[in-house]
């Protein structure tokens, strides 16, 4: 089924991303082409995942897998099929955290298999203006895979194309800014601070593609 995913991304999503977002990218050469690696991005729209998949170099595309909420993306037969076959998500059962389940087990398995994991540490879609509080699951993944590079990515403008709750996408230019890897020094709280700072730095560099 790999060919179906590749075909969907290359033939369908890439032209759509061009039309609806312009798909500008700064720092494309910093995208890792080999796993295990972790991409950490801000989250404001369903456009985010599709945009990141479309700007990824074709040769590494099969390896890129978005971590996504199981309660949302595996709901219903069609959504579930699309999430598994086309997006190839790594499910995170965020509703099972309270029950004490190891919800990051599938993500660790993916990294162990050499995948490039895309994580939105805000945990949900924000308004696209400010970065929300980051959940520290990423730091637990890095602690388990200290050699996996963590690449911060700022997605500017996607919330204007398709904000949370909207049904009609509107073409607006977006910019993807890829940063330098955030180094892991062994301390989880310190790492999350550095990750947040890296994302905010990219945010500051982004063109003013935002509402007035």
């Amino acid at each position, binding site marked *: 089924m790999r060919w179906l995913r590749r075909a969907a991304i290359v033939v369908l999503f890439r032209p759509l991303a061009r039309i609806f977002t*312009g798909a*500008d*990218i*700064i720092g494309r050469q910093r995208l890792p082409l080999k796993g295990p690696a972790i991409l950490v991005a801000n989250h404001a729209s369903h456009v985010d995942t599709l945009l990141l998949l479309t700007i990824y170099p074709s040769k590494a595309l099969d390896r890129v897998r978005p971590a996504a909420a199981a309660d949302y993306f595996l709901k219903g037969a069609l959504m579930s099929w699309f999430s598994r076959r086309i997006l190839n998500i790594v499910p995170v059962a965020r509703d099972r955290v309270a029950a004490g389940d190891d919800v990051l087990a599938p993500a660790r398995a993916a990294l162990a298999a050499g995948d490039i994991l895309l994580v939105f540490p805000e945990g949900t879609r924000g308004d696209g203006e400010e970065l929300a509080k980051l959940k520290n699951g990423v730091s637990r993944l890095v602690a388990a895979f200290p050699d996996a590079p963590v690449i911060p990515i700022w997605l500017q*403008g996607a919330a*204007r194309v398709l*904000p949370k709750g*909207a049904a*009609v996408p*509107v*073409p*607006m*230019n977006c*910019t993807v800014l890829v940063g330098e890897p955030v180094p892991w020094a062994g301390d989880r709280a310190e790492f999350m601070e550095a990750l947040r700072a890296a994302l905010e730095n990219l945010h500051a560099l982004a*063109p*003013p*593609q935002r*509402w*007035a």
Partner: protein
Amino acid sequence: MTAISRFLADQPPALLWGLVGVLGALTLAVAVTALLPRLRPGKDYTNLRQRISSWWVMIALLAAALLAGWVAVTALFAVISFIALREFLSLAHMRPEDRLIVLAAYLTIPVSYGFIAADIYGFYLVFMPVYVFMFLPFAMACIGQTRNYLPTAATFHWGLMTCVYNLGFAAMLMRAPASEALPAGPAGALFLLLAATSANDVAQYVWGKLLGRHKIMPTVSPNKTWEGFRGGWATTAALIWGLGPVFTPLQGVGLATLALALPLAGFAGDVTISAVKRDIGVKDTSALIPGHGGILDRTDSLLFTAPLYFHLLAYFGLEHF
């Protein structure tokens, strides 16, 4: 092969020679960039090389459309208008409530270019400046947000007039019927508009680099100089005076007016978009064209030269418009 040679034989010879000339100029530019690192080593010529590579792509697209005829030209310019408007509306000060108005603004593009395709010049002339001018602010009122209402309505209209209405005149030129006295056909006339506008940009840049000393608009465009402006004006005016009779029906006063006015319009478009970018706080409007920036960075002068060229041709030499 016979199909290709027959196709080329049907094209106005002046247009083909014009395209050959452009390819020659571009090849010369490639040769110069290959020599520059040897003549003046130590400088970074990546941007210059990127610029020229992008020119190949842009010229290939435009040349293919010119040879294919008015349908292709209209479609190409509709796409250019869309990308330009998207760049503009994405950077301009828009309110969150305007999201669906932005969508409505895009929908004026197929209507506006539809009038070109249907060859209804009168409707084209009034659609954007009169009816969209009234409708979009009304739609904004219906949405109900009055904070910054007037500046936003004006911003929408400015973007639509420049990116869609003004650029559309380039495609409208292609609807001149065969009965017109166009020596190289409508495609030849459009070719001269594109060639003269680009030549003006390049000439201003080159004269500015060679002789530029006195800044002309330091707060808007600090790299522009009086020397570049005057040199570009004289070079482009001479080019139009020489090539005008080959590609347009103009002569005498009409041609002289075009030769003197077009370089001014190109300069005006360039610095006007610079002022817009400075207000917004960006250097480039996007990263679509490597070495150049966005579509608006590339078409800035054309936004102003296209209507002027069209109107001077219509007044001095065309019956249809």
